[in-house]
């Protein structure tokens, strides 16, 4: 235990109170460690505001959510009407609801930008791997939160969106149908589903989310912030032990973030007050029709933030699995003949590749095209259906992010010192991520599907081949200290 401090006799009442508290709770110590004596690099740019903004949006979602829960009814017979009640009869209810619905989209905007910042400047690299993993877990929770929340207004899109996504789990071999039943709590999406989604949305997931955010921040303050140069500022300290290129988070970055918050709120409030539906992308038009289990909408699309992954799901057709089988075969042949790993390893690679090709349904396609239909349909060689692999690919697209710290083998952290073609590669990745997002919001079409398939291959290629391509090229020398021009 620390020494018991005594306030001087001429101290003000506030100082005495703080001393009293500090003797019982590390208030001043915590403030110093996380704010006034937390040294952050002085060269942060605009990419570094999205963490604070995400925290702001999280708090806003929790506060508005509490008020919505006071009036919302998680009952399939009352839910839709209770949302309209909030919009009409609850004083300022429309504002609370729009803040919450726009906040959901804003959350994904700032989190996607926050994640991309990390990709740009190598913030996921050693020693920040765990920080990154906590972040990925937050992203997963956020997706669960958004998905469960979207069912609650009980409109047509809520209902059928949930129906489609929950049915995906039914594609899992063996346990699938039971798993889907467990999630729904019924044979179709219904009152039981609404109630359990409500429970997940208002307490289970937010609790996990808040815990993970705390872990994320603790991890960040343990290792210290990265910066646009990707240089460790702790490597160069002054005689007082402080990083030479570090400045106290408070007041410099608090005032900086207040500025960022005000700009963010201008944009956010412009949407809330003047375009809360955001052209049908934030509040889908179909969702103003109450859920009707007997009438399937012509076109079911998830909200925009899920559409890149939804595109990958739809892109995974039999044809796509054949291409993937071919790629696996090619990779195995290359590994066996080029890598010279020894015969035991070669045997293992060949067996693993063979198994994957069978499971992907590649063997089935090959045998059918040779006219051996009977053999192709034997359970041993049939593999799993493409729908199942679609679910796997959709899940893998998110889970692969967890491995980024080890996939990225680039000798420099920051994009600033990487070769030009690395930047082009990033551009291609971003382009296809947007293309996947756009196509996922559109009804399926043949040209769209081809682009989605290419996009899916680009997405996975970008990450899976990263251990190889991220080492290649000529890297510019990384400076010893951060680059900074005084404002």
């Amino acid at each position, binding site marked *: 235990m620390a020494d018991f401090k005594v306030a001087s006799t001429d101290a003000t009442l506030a100082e005495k109170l703080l001393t009293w508290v500090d003797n019982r709770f590390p208030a001043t110590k915590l403030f110093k460690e996380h704010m006034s004596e937390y040294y952050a690099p002085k060269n942060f740019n605009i990419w570094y505001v999205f963490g604070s903004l995400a925290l702001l949006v999280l708090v806003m979602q929790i506060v508005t959510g509490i008020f919505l829960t006071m009036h919302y009814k998680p009952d399939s017979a009352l839910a839709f009407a209770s949302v309209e009640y909030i919009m009409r*009869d609850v004083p300022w209810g429309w504002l609370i609801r729009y803040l919450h619905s726009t906040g959901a989209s804003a959350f994904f905007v700032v989190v996607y930008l926050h994640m991309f910042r990390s990709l740009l400047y190598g913030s996921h690299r050693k020693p920040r791997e765990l920080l990154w993993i906590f972040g990925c877990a937050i992203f997963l929770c956020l997706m669960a939160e958004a998905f469960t929340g979207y069912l609650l207004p009980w409109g047509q899109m809520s209902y059928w969106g949930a129906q489609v996504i929950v049915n995906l789990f039914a594609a899992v071999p063996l346990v699938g149908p039971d798993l889907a039943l467990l999630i729904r709590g019924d044979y179709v999406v219904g009152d039981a589903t609404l109630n359990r989604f409500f429970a997940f949305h208002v307490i289970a997931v937010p609790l996990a989310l808040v815990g993970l955010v705390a872990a994320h921040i603790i991890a960040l303050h343990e290792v210290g912030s990265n910066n646009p140069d990707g240089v460790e500022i702790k490597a160069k300290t002054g005689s007082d032990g402080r990083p030479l290129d570090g400045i106290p988070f408070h007041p410099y970055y608090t005032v900086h973030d207040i*500025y960022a918050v*005000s700009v963010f*709120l*201008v944009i956010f409030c412009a949407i809330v007050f003047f375009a809360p539906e955001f052209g049908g992308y934030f509040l889908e038009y*179909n969702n*103003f029709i109450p859920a009707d289990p007997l009438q399937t909408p012509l076109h079911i699309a998830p909200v925009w933030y899920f559409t890149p992954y939804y595109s990958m799901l739809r892109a995974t057709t039999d044809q796509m699995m054949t291409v993937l089988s071919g790629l696996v075969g090619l990779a195995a042949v290359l590994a066996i003949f080029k890598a010279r790993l020894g015969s035991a390893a070669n045997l293992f690679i060949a067996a693993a590749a063979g198994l994957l090709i069978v499971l992907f349904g590649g063997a089935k396609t090959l045998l059918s095209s040779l006219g051996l239909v009977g053999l192709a349909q034997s359970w041993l060689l049939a593999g799993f259906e493409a729908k199942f692999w679609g679910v796997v690919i959709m899940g893998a697209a998110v889970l692969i992010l967890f491995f980024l710290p080890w996939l990225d083998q680039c000798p420099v952290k920051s994009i600033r010192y990487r070769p030009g073609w690395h930047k082009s590669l990033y551009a291609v990745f971003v382009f296809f991520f947007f293309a996947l997002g756009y196509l996922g919001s559109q009804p399926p079409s043949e040209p*769209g599907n081809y682009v989605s398939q290419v996009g899916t291959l680009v997405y996975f290629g970008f990450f899976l081949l990263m251990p190889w391509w991220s080492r290649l090229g000529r890297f510019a020398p990384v400076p010893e200290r951060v680059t900074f021009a005084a404002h």
Partner: protein
Amino acid sequence: MKRFFDATLLILASLGFAATVWASEGGIAWDRFPKERMTNVAALQNGAQLFVNYCLNCHSAGYMRFNRLRDLGLSEDQIKKNLLFTTEKVGETMKVAIDPKQAKEWFGALPPDLTVIARSRADIGKGSGADYLYTYLRSYYRDPEKATGWNNLVFPNVGMPHALWELQGQRGARFTDVKDAHDASKSELRFDAYVPIAAGKLSAHDYDEAVADLVAYLQWMGEPAQGQRVRVGVWVLIYLGLFTVIAWRLNASYWKDVK
């Protein structure tokens, strides 16, 4: 690098192609609802009157309270005297007395609740819900092949008969057989023109005006707070704009110490 750009262009072009294909699907293009009507209180009141007289017999507006019409400048007395037919209490929502079973027999489906109909009928790339309703209520024609005797260009085989026919009058539609440009064995009926059958109480121009009023009301009813939302929003943005300037200067004054 050039190859990369070529590939990008190709992809963009194919995306553009896909978008145009999708846009050409579906019924006729929607007319534009005259938006300025949303700020015309007299028009909104007239729309409310039309709504109660012509729509509220079969359609409900189950989330809309009669006394919310005070927002349109009507007094509680005026609402009670002129608009309350189905209930005594002005705080009630706009329920309807139609028997769901009978409705199903007559129209093939239960007439949908109209409270948020204007919000639900918008479509990305086609127009707002108000645009749709404004077109829909002006696209009815006589069709002897339909059980109700009516059909609609923007909603083919619609279950609802033309509720406003007294006002608009009756008209038929002439279609021409158009050969498919790509396949001579196929042809499709293309709408040519309306054929007047009987005049209504209103001229064509006055009918369009009346429908615009009614749609303005439906649009307002979809979100009665929309006017307040915009008014509050202007002040919020003015405040945030000033705050941003202060935050910007505050930030600069702190950061001038950082060398």
